[in-house]
């Protein structure tokens, strides 16, 4: 009875050679057969299976009947809905493409720089103009009241 406990090191090397008829297998089969081998499915099981199968059949045939009777109308409505969706999508897509193109055009347009006014005049003339303007402008006081004593001279 205890021979099943022998080590089977050689089996580990070649699992494919295992047989379910080895000692461990015989022991397991014997044990499980005695435990559950006598168990029978209750007699009412077939009746319930049959009920469920017939229910499914009835539902399936009812579905196919309703599909047949409302077939042309259903397919027409479906076609209309699909057509609308495709049209909407198509229009939306077109608009997106147009917008994307115009965006691209704006972004990719080369920046045109207007020639600077100052580039047209020589540098010494410009400097003279700036000095003249500075002389004309009144000094701006910042940071509050200036006392006379603080003024130079």
């Amino acid at each position: 009875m205890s021979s099943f406990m022998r080590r089977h090191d050689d089996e580990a090397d070649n699992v494919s050679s295992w047989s379910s008829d080895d000692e461990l297998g015989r022991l397991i089969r014997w044990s499980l057969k005695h435990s559950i081998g006598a168990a029978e499915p209750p007699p009412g099981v077939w009746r319930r299976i049959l009920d469920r199968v017939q229910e499914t059949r009835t539902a399936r045939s009812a579905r196919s009947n309703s599909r047949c009777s409302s077939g042309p109308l259903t397919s027409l409505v479906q076609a209309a809905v699909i057509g609308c969706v495709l049209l909407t999508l198509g229009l939306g897509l077109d608009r997106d493409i147009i917008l994307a193109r115009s965006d691209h055009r704006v972004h990719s347009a080369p920046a045109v720089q207007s020639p600077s006014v100052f580039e047209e005049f020589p540098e010494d003339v410009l400097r003279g103009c700036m000095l003249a303007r500075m002389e004309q402008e009144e000094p701006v006081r910042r940071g509050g009241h200036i006392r006379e004593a603080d003024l130079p001279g």
Partner: protein
Amino acid sequence: MGEDAQLVMRIQGGDLGAFEALYHKYKRPLYHTALAITGDDGAAEELLQDCFVRAHAAMDRVNGSNSLSPWLYRIIVNLSYNWVKRNQRWPLALDTFVDRLIAGPAASPEHAAEGSELRAVVRDAVASLNLKQRVVVILFYFQGFSLNEIAYVLDCPVGTVKSRLYRASQALRIQLLEDRRLAGELVYATS
């Protein structure tokens, strides 16, 4: 043409009598498999029902040239797997079966007691395996499937079946060696 092929043709033609014949042919091994995996008789009954309802629904797509057995096992094993995962309560209910069914009337009380104890040890060892290993052990040792058939039933490579079976077998041997109820056998086995 095989018996299963004829039944499939008749079922595909709407013959419920053929479907009943198919049920009676496979009900016991499928029920035992579900019971061995779930350890619950109510669940096994429910899963057997589901198995045949699904089989009937898919019968139009079945090629009748092969035996239906692996395909039906595939359905019942998948259903049992899902049940165990959903309920996570393996396998104490099996005890009730063992108590009810062991110790046949012909056996002497001593022999019956010895047998019942050994069965309990083996049952506990199988119960200690994880679900995947347990299913492989049940299909290989209890139902006598080949490695290729188990690979089909479990929808996994044969190598996976081999490694699960190897690990399960090692775990079972260790478990049986370490079981105190077989202490006397242990001395004999290790000498």
